């Protein structure tokens, strides 16, 4: 592999998150290094999605600290996380149903677009140039993910697997430093999973994007991850390279104990 794993880019320390009285995450610490593929696994309800939501500012932990690129991060809104280069996909596809594939992916570029609505209204000069410039970037992503033929299709009409790919494309269009993927392969057949794995690795490889991944398919996780963190009932029960984690007795117990 050509890519080099770099320094710690996100460092979560002693994170605890509660909804009302329900504890979603309890005292979890782990870090993500630049350029690596970092997986979070665990049974349903283990707090995996909450973890991603903490990283990109959708949820705010009651306790703990987050260091981003070495600096302590203040409580921030999701759009601020986006501005810092954190993009993500969702467990239940969160595409914009009323828009075409192209428009969905174009939304991923929004932070890089500088024109205001008045310029848009006139659609002349800078606004048009900007649209085109970003369209070119988006077309590269479209080509990269091989979704040329559905470019103008409304996303609602697409099959599940393709929707997932479009969502990835939308996140990629933002040219993120860190890409959070929440079960990108859930509900896919073997072939689609293979494609998606390839795309994830390609992204990691081609753009050097750091990837934080939640996935149920252990085969996939062990194949493509550099390091894996295991959660169970909101607590961390394992962390390390795939082989290490695979042989961790607590992890084995957690997994044997559930139907996954």
């Amino acid at each position: 592999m050509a890519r080099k794993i770099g320094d710690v880019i996100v460092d979560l320390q002693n994170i605890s998150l509660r909804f009302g009285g329900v504890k979603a995450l309890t005292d979890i610490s782990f870090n993500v290094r630049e350029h690596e593929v970092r997986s979070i696994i665990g049974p349903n309800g283990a707090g995996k999605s909450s973890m991603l939501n903490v990283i990109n500012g959708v949820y705010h932990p009651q306790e703990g600290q987050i260091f981003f690129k070495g600096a302590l991060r203040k409580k921030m809104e999701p759009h601020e996380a986006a501005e810092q280069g954190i993009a993500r996909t969702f467990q239940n596809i969160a595409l914009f149903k009323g828009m075409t594939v192209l428009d969905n992916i174009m939304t991923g570029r929004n932070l890089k677009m500088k024109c205001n609505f008045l310029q848009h209204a006139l659609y002349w000069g800078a606004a048009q140039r900007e649209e085109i410039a970003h369209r070119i970037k988006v077309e590269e992503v479209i080509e990269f993910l091989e979704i040329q033929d559905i470019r103008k299709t409304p996303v609602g009409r697409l099959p599940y697997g393709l929707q997932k790919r479009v969502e990835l494309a939308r996140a990629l269009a933002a040219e993120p430093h860190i890409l959070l993927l929440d079960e990108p392969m859930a509900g896919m057949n073997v072939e689609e999973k293979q494609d998606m794995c390839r795309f994830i690795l390609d992204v990691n490889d081609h753009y050097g994007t750091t990837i934080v991944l939640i996935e149920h398919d252990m085969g996939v996780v062990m194949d493509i991850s550099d390091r894996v963190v295991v959660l169970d009932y909101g607590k961390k029960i394992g962390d390390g390279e795939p082989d290490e984690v695979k042989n961790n007795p607590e992890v084995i117990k957690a997994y044997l104990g559930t139907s996954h």
Partner: protein
Amino acid sequence: MSDARGTAADAASLDTFPRLLMQHARQRPSRPAMREKEYGIWQTYTWAEVADKVRAIAGGLAALGFRRGDRLAVVGDNRPRLYWSVAACQCLGGIPVMMYQDAVAQEMAYVMQDAEIRFACVEDQEQVDKMLEIQGGLPLLEHVIYDDARGLRHYDQPFLHGLDEVVELGTAHAGAHPDFIDREIDKGSPDDVSVMLYTSGTTGKPKGVCQSHSAFIAAARGGCSFDKLSDQDDILSYLPMAWVGDHLFSYAQALVAGFTINCPESGETVMNDLREIGPTYYFAPPRVFENLLTQVMIRMEDASPIKRKLFHHFMDVAKRCGADILDGKSVSGGDRLQYWLGKLFIYGPLKNVLGMSRVRVAYTAGAAIGPDLFRLYRSIGINLKQLYGQTETCAYVCLQPDGQIKLDSVGTPAPNVEVKLADNGEILVRGPMLLKAYYKRPDATAESINAEGYFMTGDAGFFDEDGHLKIIDRAKDVGKLTGGGMFAPNYIENKLKFFQHIKEVVCFGNQRDFVTAFVNIDLEAVGNWAERKGMAYAGYTDLASQPQVYELIRECIEQVNADLASDPNMSESQIKRFLVLHKELDADDGELTRTRKVRRNFVAEKYAVLIDALYAGKTSQYIETQVTYEDGRSNKVSAELVIADAKTFPPQPRKAA
């Protein structure tokens, strides 16, 4: 002469492709030379840009050590940059060797050995992988250049170069040797070999056909003037670059006339891209026209009854008078009005959906086209014509002139081409477009060109009273039944293939008592038919074995038999027995050529047991066959094939004309 091709004086000096290219770059620098659907739009390259790119690539090749006379293998889909590589190679006096992109590595290895390739320019990772696979057996191969870098990042073989890298080398080279390319172009001679195309090789190993600049330019000029092609025309280039037709239409004629080549986004999007571009000049083998029509008919089945009625009504009108209107013959006013309405409501939209609204000239060749099919396209106003030619003649022998279309002929000899018939009916041709030689095969060259300089096409045919050439079959395929009657298998097969339910037929009968046939059903058409009948089936093999399907095929065969019975020469060739094959004939299994022609002898050998069963009077036969899939895996398919009889008819005298 249209001014697009410059003055006569120009023509004299424009005798090689590089010179033609440079001339266009001067004459119409900002006209589009090529377009390619990429990143969602048609990326357009003007003649000036193309010339610059070609110079750069040529410089890069030269920098890599490419020398005059070297051969450059070109493999890939129709991509502008591959066309540029061809031109760049020619600039340096090299010979591009066009290869089929879907050939498996082993097939490629043969050609590359035969042509002593040092340089290869390939499209993408897939082709690079093939090159890497066969590279061990190709000690001469020095450099492999690829166009699309996707997935190749971690390939660190030193002989792999991205085309961009080559262009950079070329730019640097041009800095060091400013007029190097121009000098190289000046060195070129019209008699130099401009390209090597390998014959598909229905029999034996492929042979490299060496064509000179002058031959291809002559063929292209002839065609352009014949159909008045100009720099305003558009063509969609989607047929394999290694096929002579593409080289003539998309490369040679474009460089002569200066029209625009349009490359589709990918194989899957051809239909869509065709519709977007709406070419004015179109070429497709009969198979494509057939498929299109089948699709049209299938889609129309789902239309509302009113629409269906309207459609069929106007198609009848078109059948009645459409072709005559296109040919400029006189047609009654009522029909004209009906046709006009039809054009508004049916033909126009239909042509539009097919992407043929703007088509001015369309050609088909490579195999016989069904007269009904042919007429149908013409009747809705598409100026579809047939041509006849071979790789060895730059695909240029006979053309159908506008207004003189005969459904079963291939037209009159093209400008500057002499055609005559040998005693055995074999067609002989002579003219400026003949091949220079088969590469390293003086024996074969001598064999195919007779003392008077005529190329022996190997096809049998005759001229009708108007001087139009009719092709019957491959001369060597024309055999005799034991009863003495003529057996022209292609002729019979073509008649059968014109039925929408039949995809492929192989007939046997030479030195036999009667004619038998293997049939491949058309899965799409028969599948649809079966669905409407409510029949359940699991895949091709199952469907092919259904008794109703046999009944369907039998009807087709009997219709052909009745037709054959009316032709005194052919009445004995009626098909007595047939079977429907359990698998589709496939190029991957070697049963078809890459241009999808049946390899008759191979099939006969492979399925000898079936032929025996046909002639032994059995009613069924067990067969087991190896099937190769696209990815190279293989599997065995077996079936108990039913053999059926078909009704034959007594010979009937031809009706008085």
